[in-house]
């Protein structure tokens, strides 16, 4: 990657100039508008960005200024990144759906002087904050609808600013030379972007990434997955999220491929089918949603179609993954898979917009193994990665042919990883961030002097050298014999069974691990109907011996899995119980985002926890509950406890799988 003058193209504005020459007539950005895909070539993109940059400069944007970018995935907002960077200023993308307080905090903390927003909704939000945001001088909007009647001195249309830029350029062609000189003067070590982490714990922190961080990370990902300028991707994830910044911005500039922006957030499914991305990223819930949609639609289909679907999906489950990984498969099965491709897999992939998919990623949280395997068995090269904003995304990646649903793969190119004493994953790479903006304490806590970053996640390498993330490091404890106890890891394994809705693992500083479970009423009620189990309420169903028998099988399978993992073997579940009531956010047992509050639950159900460890077979408890209308009541029940026999550790080779 070098420019015509031979200098390395180590910033996005330089890459833009390069692409505008080398790929002048190749598509760079697409957006569906008025029902038609509108395309901009790299040459056209250069023209748009230059005009906007000159317009911004005329408005007084200077090097070092921070520019907020708020809105959904639209070409003009992506152009803003590059235009701002070309002037030496720093883009600060912000989550558009964030609560006002959080948005104010970020904009104020970053000290933004300009804000480029999508539409009136965002403009209003920003304008309502002007009392707090003393530094904010100008707001620029993309969508003109409803924007009449605002103060024209401080509020500008994106297109008007571009028109100003073009007019100035026409009057003084030397402007362009100066603009290009400024771009040439910037270097890879300069600050490129500040990405605020969503801040699940405490206030959001501004992660400062240099051009080198982003460009080198992007380049490594491109080499790893052999991406070319022919890739097609669809941009639909939040701009402020590091993943989108790398996939939809950085890699597009580095590899030169085209990014398509959907017509509106609601049309993404149709738009994806029309574009047929070759490179796709989605959090697990998107894949879950697509699978649910497919299953539901198939339930409504005629008998013939449903029968054919079920038959071939079953076959794919058997051999699909082997074929994808290039492992040996019997000729007849191969032929049958080929027929299935014609009749079921192909049309289904087309429906989902995955006909051309070369590589797909999922990350962010654990994906259910069943869901993961479903897509892979269709022949989709779906992989997992583990990444963080502080790493410029990539920490680990799954290489082709080494895909497991429960690991996150090997260290990404140029990334070093080590596991700290307490199980925490530490990494060092060229993508490692410069520091947190205006927060040296947090920087010092997270990043060591020699460049190692504390990920905050606990994990370990399995026998094949794949990293497994088990939990947040601060939640990982120890059993009384000193072995590792990772509650969330165990809970997630249990929750992958449809019959188990919630699980709470206890065992920190105790002799063994035990769990308290919630059954999933929908799934278990369905099961009860099929098995002629009669019950009157959740409580009765939860305490039913046959339900216990069924759940025991799931727990046993989890124990078997745990036995296969050396570091987890000791935390096999020795005792479990099924809670007599569903965990509920109204009772403070779950957070509003439906995560279990482990500590609170342990206190609330202290008698049950005690019973788990004093050997009793059942315990009578009374629990106060809050009804939806705010009234309080009490539920009492005799909760049974089951003992489990641990499996011996699996010795060696035949492990893992």
């Amino acid at each position, binding site marked *: 990657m070098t420019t015509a003058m031979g200098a390395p193209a180590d910033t996005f504005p330089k890459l833009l100039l390069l692409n505008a020459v080398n790929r002048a007539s190749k598509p760079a950005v697409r957006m569906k508008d008025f029902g038609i895909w509108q395309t901009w070539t790299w040459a056209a993109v250069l023209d748009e960005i230059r005009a906007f940059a000159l317009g911004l400069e005329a408005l007084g944007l200077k090097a070092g200024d921070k520019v907020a970018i708020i809105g959904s995935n639209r070409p003009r907002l992506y152009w803003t990144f590059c235009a701002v960077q070309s002037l030496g200023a720093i883009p600060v993308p912000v989550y558009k759906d964030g609560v006002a307080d959080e948005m104010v905090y970020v904009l104020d903390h970053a000290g933004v002087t300009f804000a480029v927003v999508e539409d009136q909704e965002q403009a209003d939000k920003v304008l309502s904050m002007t009392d707090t945001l003393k530094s904010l001088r100008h707001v620029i909007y993309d*969508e003109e609808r409803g924007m*009449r009647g605002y103060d024209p001195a401080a509020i500008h249309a994106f297109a008007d600013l571009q028109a100003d830029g073009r007019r100035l350029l026409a009057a003084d062609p030397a402007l362009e030379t100066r603009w290009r000189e400024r771009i040439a003067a910037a270097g890879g070590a300069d600050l490129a972007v500040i990405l605020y982490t969503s801040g699940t714990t405490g206030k959001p922190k501004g992660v400062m990434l240099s051009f080198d961080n982003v460009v080198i990370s992007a380049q490594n990902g491109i080499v790893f997955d052999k991406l070319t300028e022919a890739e097609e991707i669809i941009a639909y994830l939040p701009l402020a999220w590091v993943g989108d910044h790398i996939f939809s911005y950085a890699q597009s500039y580095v590899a030169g491929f085209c990014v398509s922006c959907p*017509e*509106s957030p*609601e049309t993404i499914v149709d738009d994806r089918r029309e574009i047929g991305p070759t490179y796709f990223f989605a959090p697990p819930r998107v894949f879950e949603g697509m699978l649910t949609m497919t299953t539901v639609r198939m339930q409504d289909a005629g008998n013939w179609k449903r029968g054919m679907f079920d038959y071939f999906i079953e076959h794919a489950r058997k051999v699909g993954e082997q074929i994808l990984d290039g492992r040996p498969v019997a000729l007849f099965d191969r032929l049958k898979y080929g027929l299935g491709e014609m009749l079921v897999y192909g049309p289904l992939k087309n429906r989902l917009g995955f006909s051309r998919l070369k590589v797909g990623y999922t990350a962010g949280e654990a994906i259910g193994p069943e869901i993961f395997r479903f897509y892979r068995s269709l022949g989709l090269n779906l992989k997992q990665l583990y990444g963080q904003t502080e790493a410029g995304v990539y920490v680990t990646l799954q290489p082709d042919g080494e895909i497991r649903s429960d690991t996150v793969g090997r260290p990404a190119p140029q990334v070093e990883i080590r596991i700290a004493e307490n199980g925490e994953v530490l990494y060092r790479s060229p993508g490692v961030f410069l520091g947190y903006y205006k927060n040296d304490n947090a920087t010092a806590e997270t990043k060591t002097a020699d460049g190692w970053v504390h990920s905050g996640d606990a994990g370990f390498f399995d026998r094949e050298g794949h990293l497994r993330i088990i939990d947040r490091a601060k939640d990982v404890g120890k059993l009384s014999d000193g072995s590792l106890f990772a509650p969330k890891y165990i809970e997630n394994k249990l929750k992958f069974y449809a019959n188990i809705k919630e699980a709470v693992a206890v065992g920190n500083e105790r002799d063994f691990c035990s769990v308290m479970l919630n059954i999933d009423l929908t799934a278990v009620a369905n099961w009860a109907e099929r098995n002629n189990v009669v019950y009157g309420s959740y409580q009765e169903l939860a305490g039913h011996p046959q339900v216990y028998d069924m759940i025991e099988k799931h727990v046993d399978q989890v124990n078997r899995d745990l036995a296969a993992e050396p570091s987890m073997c000791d935390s096999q579940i020795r005792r479990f119980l099924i809670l007599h009531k569903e965990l509920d956010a109204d009772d403070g047992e779950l957070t509003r985002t439906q995560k279990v509050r482990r500590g609170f639950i342990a206190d609330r159900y202290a008698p049950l926890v005690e019973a788990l460890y004093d050997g009793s077979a059942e315990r009578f408890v009374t629990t106060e509950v809050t009804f939806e209308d705010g009234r309080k009541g009490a539920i009492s029940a005799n909760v049974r406890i089951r003992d489990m026999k641990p499996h011996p550790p699996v010795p060696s080779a035949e492990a893992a799988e």
Partner: protein
Amino acid sequence: MTAFVESRPMSAARPIEKGETLLSVDGVSLSFGGVRALTNVSFDIKKGEVRAIIGPNGAGKTSMLNVINGFYHPQQGTIAYKGQVRRRQKPYEAASQGIGRTFQNVALFKGMSTLDNIMAGRTLKMGVGLFWQLFRYGPALNEEIEHRKKVEEIIDFLEIQHIRKTPVGKLPYGLKKRVELGRALAMEPELLLLDEPMAGMNLEEKEDMSRFILDVREQFGTTIALIEHDIGVVMDLSDRIVVLEYGRKIADGSAEEVQNNQAVIDAYLGVAH
């Protein structure tokens, strides 16, 4: 979004400037047999304003709209549109003069897609002969492309891209109302009559619809007359309000004037007789 190209007014009358009277109703009385729906009602609608017609149930609001768009013919009184007193006319004639409307009960083609429903709103603007239409060729094709462009602008404006190809019958109520507004907009009306555009909507849908109504006026310069029961919405949206009760006009003025009018308070709250 690009603004609409101002369509040429179909009637020969000179264009009406903003603030001038667009439509005036003078002494209109309407009765069905012995039932008097409207009695000697007079008011006017000025270009560019949002004019609300309110009143208790059975006050004659919908009858008033039906008179304005030519569906009912008053026994007495006159209606002047753009300064010309109207002779007896049919609804489509009113439509071709630039009066569009939506209905209290959604009246869309259920089996057709959103796109086709809105396209149907452009029927009056289609001029190519049957011959070309049959073959969808030459001028017919060019014309369809032009119309489709307008329809896409409306779809974009109303933010209903995601239901472009969905049969209207499958849509939730709030979206149906929006499609209906889209169809009315497709004929590029100068005066838009909305019959309870927000009936049965939740708060959020009402807010969205209010925003669309204001945006329609701002972006297309359309004059709007609406009937609405949600008094809060009416007070926020409207420039002037006519209040009807038992077919008679009992008040006319700004939101504030109407709110403080004793006759209106009595009509809504009831008085001891």
